[in-house]
């Protein structure tokens, strides 16, 4: 029908890059090299050196393969990551499907609440979760009372899987929902017309069409779980790779290369996983350029379906938001110990953090906003270079940025100290002691999220929209500014929100880099409180403040997205 049959995709036709694009690519490469490659390299190279002589060797990797503990950890990490993807899918699928596929009252609320688990403040979140789901948490105490049984929600590998799938399932929810919304109504109607309905319709048409979104989310969950060390450590599970790396890197007095070797393995495994998911998606890019119709036909549920649907949604939300509820209770609790509910309630914790938190909030907002800003600028630029130019090696920018996902925060933190502490400003202060270093570390850590969102947004823009602009006299740079960026606005904002909100509760790299209390973000304040018994309540209160703050910003940006979409007539 149409006459664009030669190359599979029109975008593949760009043969050369403009000097501006080359300069941009080089600038990004330099940035990544300086703030990711160099610091991480200075730390990880130890993994490749021989003990004593310091010469290059791979013997440490041989040791890794030969050590039963590490191989067991590797296998456990794979198992836990895969199972977490399964369970995260179980949580995310009904929420995404019901809120996008049906006329569902409160769909926006469900989507917003479904995002919350991603913003679980460190330490205090785990304490709250233990108080609810732990071996002597509220649920088990009640179960023990009533039926004399206990469920090991938080025990061993299964505990890790449970906590991780609750924590990270929003990645699948967000991506899957976006993909489901973008499926043309006609696709589904065609299938219905041919006699498909109900679950078969979902399984054979709707889900395969949403598969790119699902895979994007699932691969993020996999990699995050694979590389996360906080959750296994808080559940005292040590035979997984990320905790092993962390334990070895941060133990004093031990100059063992294995921690760095494991870090290298983590990075390689994560990049491989991302690469595999990208390969699986090749040729399955179903993005519908014609955005008419406004997505899936929204069905009205029968009363029976409605009861079931709302039941399932409420059940899932109750489960995944239980940690936040526990956190809220904890922040008002006087003493909560070995009992289903706190002994009494008080406002004193909020009073205690009230004075200090304004500084933390201000710092958090500045850091997270700047980090999110850097991320979307880089994200848009990298996505553009990868998807719209034929620059040699452009995928490497993508891989490098994605590799940041796999780098343990503490490795990055140490790397920053090592690489930048010797660099001084004219007045003698080290570069690494400026708060901007924290921002850079946060930006690097959260770049993969923003990059994914920006790539997805750019993929959905038809190339002819850009060609039309060039044809009318706009240079590539002008086209990006006037056409590409405005059209990507929704995706960019989504990327910003993800980067911002996760950066706002990030701790592992921050902890290494915070130089003074006046520069400290919320997560650091939380950490300081959570080091003592008396700090538990105030810590929880601060955690609630953090969650509210991020949630507020998220809702705000959703409102902005919606308004701008509506104004553009692109909404539905």
């Amino acid at each position, binding site marked *: 029908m149409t006459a664009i049959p030669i190359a599979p995709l029109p975008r593949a036709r760009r043969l050369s890059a403009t000097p501006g694009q080359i300069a941009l690519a080089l600038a990004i490469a330099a940035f990544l090299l300086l703030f990711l490659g160099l610091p991480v390299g200075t730390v990880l190279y130890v993994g490749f050196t021989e*003990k*004593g002589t310091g010469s290059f060797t791979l013997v*440490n990797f041989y*040791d*890794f393969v*030969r*050590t*039963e*503990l590490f191989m067991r950890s590797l296998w456990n990490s794979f198992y836990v990551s895969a199972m977490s993807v399964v369970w995260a899918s179980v949580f995310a699928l009904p929420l995404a499907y019901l809120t996008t596929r049906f006329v569902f009252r409160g769909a926006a609320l469900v989507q917003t609440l479904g995002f919350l688990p991603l913003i679980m403040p460190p330490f205090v979140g785990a*304490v709250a979760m*233990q*108080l609810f789901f732990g*071996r*002597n*948490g509220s649920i088990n105490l009640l179960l023990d009372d009533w039926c004399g049984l206990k469920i090991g929600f938080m025990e061993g590998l299964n505990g890790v899987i449970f906590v991780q799938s609750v924590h990270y399932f929003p990645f699948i929810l967000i991506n899957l929902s976006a993909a489901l919304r973008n499926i043309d109504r006609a696709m589904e109607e065609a299938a219905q017309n041919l006699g498909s309905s109900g679950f078969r319709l979902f399984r054979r048409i709707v889900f395969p069409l949403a598969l790119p979104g699902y895979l994007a989310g699932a691969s993020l969950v996999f990699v995050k779980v694979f590389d996360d060390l906080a959750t296994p*450590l*808080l559940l*005292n599970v*040590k*035979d997984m790779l990320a*905790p092993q790396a962390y*334990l070895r890197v*941060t*133990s*004093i*007095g*031990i*100059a*063992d*290369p294995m921690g760095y070797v494991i870090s290298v393995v983590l990075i390689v495994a994560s990049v491989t996983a991302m690469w595999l998911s990208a390969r699986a998606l090749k040729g399955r890019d179903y993005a519908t350029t014609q955005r008419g119709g406004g997505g899936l036909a929204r069905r009205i549920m029968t009363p029976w379906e409605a009861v079931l649907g709302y039941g399932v949604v409420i059940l899932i939300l109750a489960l995944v938001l239980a940690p936040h509820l526990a956190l809220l209770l904890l922040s008002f609790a*006087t*003493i*909560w*110990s*070995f*009992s289903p509910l706190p002994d009494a309630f008080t406002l004193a914790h909020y009073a205690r953090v009230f004075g200090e938190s304004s500084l933390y909030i201000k710092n958090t907002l500045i850091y997270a906003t700047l980090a999110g800003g850097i991320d979307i600028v880089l994200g848009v630029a990298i996505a553009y270079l990868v998807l719209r130019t034929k620059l040699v090696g452009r995928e490497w920018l993508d891989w490098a940025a994605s590799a940041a996902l796999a780098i343990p925060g503490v490795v990055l933190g*140490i790397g920053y*100290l090592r690489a930048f*502490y*010797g660099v*001084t400003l004219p007045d003698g*202060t*080290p570069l690494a*002691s400026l708060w901007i270093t924290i921002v850079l570390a946060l930006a690097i850590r959260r770049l993969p999220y923003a990059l994914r969102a920006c790539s997805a947004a750019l993929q959905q823009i038809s190339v002819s929209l850009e060609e039309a602009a060039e044809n009318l006299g706009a240079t590539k740079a002008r086209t990006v500014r006037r056409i590409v960026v405005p059209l990507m606005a929704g995706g960019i904002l989504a990327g910003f929100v993800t980067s911002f909100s996760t950066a706002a509760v990030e701790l592992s790299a921050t*902890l*290494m880099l*915070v*130089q*003074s*209390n006046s520069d400290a973000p919320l997560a650091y304040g939380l*950490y*300081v*409180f*959570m*080091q*003592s*018994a*008396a*700090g*538990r309540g105030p810590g929880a209160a601060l955690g609630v403040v953090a969650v509210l703050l991020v949630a507020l910003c998220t809702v705000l940006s959703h409102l902005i997205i919606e308004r701008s979409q509506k104004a553009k007539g692109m909404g539905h």
Partner: protein
Amino acid sequence: MTAYRLALAFGLALTTSIAHAQAPAGKVTVVTSFSKDVTDPFKKAFEKAVPGVTLEVQNRNTNAGVKYLEETKANNQVDLFWASAPDAFEVLKGKKLLAAYKPKATGIPDKIGSYPINDPAGFYSGFAASGYGIMWNDRYAKAKKLPEPKDWQDLAGPAFYDHVSIASPARSGTTHLTVETILQGEGWEKGWRTLKAMAGNFNAITDRSFGVPEAVNSGQVGVGIVIDFFAFSAQASGFPVKFVYPTVTTVVPANVGIVTNAPNKAAAEAFVEFLLSLAGQEVLLEPGIRRLPVNPAVYAKAGADYPNPFTDPRFQKMIGFDVDKSEARTGVVDTLFDQLISFQLDALKGVTKVLHEVDAALAKKPNPQAKALADEVRALIAAMPVSEAQGSSPELRGAFTGAKEKGARQAEIESQWASFARDSYAKAKAKADEALKAAR
């Protein structure tokens, strides 16, 4: 307030006493593992006592703090290191990251218990003491009908199976000292036997010191092996927890040291002096801190039930602690603990569970064959891949401290120890099952 007036008086005294030197002013930066509950009152009191100086607190856990000083030494911006674990100070001293300073404060004895309060070489000074012991959640103990523990050996009993928690010694300086204390107090072989018997009852081995009191406070775990002030401050916050000092333990000081090339040396010295002054010592008595002052005079201000290591006979019995010995084998002990216990916990618990059942059966109906088998099981569990002498040997130390000369790699040694433990526990499990069959 007395403390306030004292602080004021001391402040005046201090300013005059060091007026001949350089008057301390500006910002003094301290890296500390102490929580806000500890640092906030000190900051307040110190800034009041020495006007013109601001105390800048950088909160990092001990390990991260050491790492931080190490990574930033090229352009050091930190004046003081302030933490509990003496071994962390030993590491810093070894890396030449601490500057020697002789405090002028008076009234502080040389020893607390049998432990020297200050570094003999003068690189760091003790300002508070802490003892190790057992902390438990009262509600939990009542619900599970746990007896009150009195000593380490009690925790090895069947009643405590799956109720005990400890921090990994590789991760927590305080736990490392607890382990080292047991090893020094009971001897290498017997100490490990006690540790492993206890470990069979562990529910969890956490990776940070505070993880243990946190779990006990919230009732997730019944009993924790902790440093005393965790328990005291939890009690002060109202948590239903109790604490006991066992017979084999020691009190060791929490320390402060001035960092090499401190940017504000005068203020750093002022802070050390303040910590050791009466006013500074009294801050330790605050309910949120509850550490043991090193100046015996201060105990007069404390309540009657406040433990006083200078008068309490229990503390006088406490064993001496050989810092050099501990320092020499830090990596070996921590790695042994991890490889033999932390990473083999499931196997170890499996055997211990059966062993408890055998003991119960034997108590009802004696059976010499089963008894003999059970003893064999205990011997298998207690078996160590290295002797005490080997543990302190330069070869092994070299493997763990990244010595410059070539030698065995840490990963190789770990791998050997892990398979040793795996095999021993597997054999022990088979024997224990046999014993159980015989005993029934």
